[in-house]
């Protein structure tokens, strides 16, 4: 059917690319494919696939439970592949939350003590808010890929030369 909608996955993606006219450089377009990036990353590495000054979109290979994270500002998660559940806790220890001037996600060593806020069950194409100050953990039911709308921080990994068209 000509109008069948095509989504991709780690197992089945086809990459486009940048064709240059004249003296342009393809590197300026920072062209990558998020499924390729996720497929070549270790689980829960937060690889920056898009950056706009301090703001980031980070791509993660979702396999096995993620670490617990917490952030001083909102983030969002978009499931691009797989099913998963996100668990939220309001930590008792307010010092776990990074100060307001500390941006990006902070990894916690263990599940924090606190009140269980909720859980969200997500599948492909679903998007959830990761609210400021709530600790969260993502538990995939199977291999998945997620995009995290965030701000550059200690968990953000930039490897443009490895992921982008040269």
């Amino acid at each position: 059917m000509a109008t069948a909608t095509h989504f991709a996955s780690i197992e089945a993606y086809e990459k486009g690319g940048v064709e240059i006219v004249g003296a342009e450089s393809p590197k300026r377009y920072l062209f990558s494919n998020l499924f390729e990036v996720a497929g070549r990353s270790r689980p829960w590495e937060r690889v920056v696939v898009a950056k706009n000054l301090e703001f980031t979109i980070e791509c993660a290979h979702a396999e096995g439970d993620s670490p617990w994270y917490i952030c001083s500002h909102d983030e969002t998660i978009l499931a691009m592949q797989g099913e998963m559940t996100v668990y939220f806790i309001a930590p008792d220890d307010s010092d776990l939350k990074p100060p307001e001037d500390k941006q990006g996600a902070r990894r916690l060593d263990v599940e924090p003590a606190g009140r269980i806020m909720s859980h969200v069950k997500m599948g492909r194409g679903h998007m959830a808010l990761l609210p400021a100050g709530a600790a969260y953990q993502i538990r995939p039911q199977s291999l998945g890929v997620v995009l995290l709308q965030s701000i550059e921080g200690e968990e953000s990994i930039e490897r443009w030369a490895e992921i982008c068209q040269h």
Partner: protein
Amino acid sequence: MATATKHPTETPIIDDDHKAVLDERYGYHVYEIGRFKFERDEYFVRVSYPKGTYIADVGNFLRSMMRDVAWGFFYGWVNFDDIFGTVNRYGSVDVFVGTYNAGYKTAGTDFVERFDAAKLLACFKSLLSDWTNEGYDPFAAPLETGTPYGSKNGNNDEAVNFQRELAERFVGLPGDTEIRTDERGFPVNRHFRDVVQDAPEVHAEPGFEGQLSAFSLFDYLARSPVTWNPSIVSCVGESAYCPTSEEHILPIQHGNDRVEWFIQLSDQITWEVGDKETGAPRAVVTMKAGDVSAMPADIRHRGFSPKRSMLLVWENMAPGLEERYGSGELPPTAAEF
């Protein structure tokens, strides 16, 4: 006689109201603002300015005008084609002919005037309403609407007054924008009937209701009634997710005044990229599902989507970025390696 005030850059800002006079040949009004005069006949728009005449297909012109008006002149340059367009100066707007076209510049036939944004918007909104006939929707893909051609035949104000949805924090939170449903008047588009219409489950514990939100972005986009018209679904500071559904051709060539990013969520779009100042071709970017690409701050781009597709446009809405990129304080690319 035009009244003009001075902008900090010393470019005079025209803040006179537009004039509209009925053209009885076709039933449309002729619009005048500043030294521009806009006329339409059954097929074409004709723009007269002190150095010459610009002519274009009226269908393309109305589709471009629709985006320019709906976006409030958007970020930076909205090129209706290689010759005519607007530049958002945030509070004022330039209307130009040939200013960003190497041929016009060399010939000295380029022309630009700067207008108070509210006055120009009022003119363009009136023109769009008057020139759009019953049965034609300039927001729709060509296969989904009637013809823009012919003499005056009613109007379609419901279509041209369509308001895009702009979440302040996240879709579905109390007081923020809502998810799209049949009941709200957002049926699934004909090209997305095969998209799974499921939804995430939010299980909030007592006391935390309303603090969390989740929705199906793919379902949200499958129900988009318009093309090439981003909404906002989430904001992290000034970082805004602006997803949109695309079909046929982006009517304008967008020359952003900042870096923006595209993430192709489904299907395929090919982008034609040119130099922002001259229009000289620079690249063709083909994006397939899962592809990610930046659009540098010194280019103009136009997309071609053969099937309705889902695109996540990502913008940095921070005010003042246009000056930081324009002055060279910030490089035109998002990162270097």
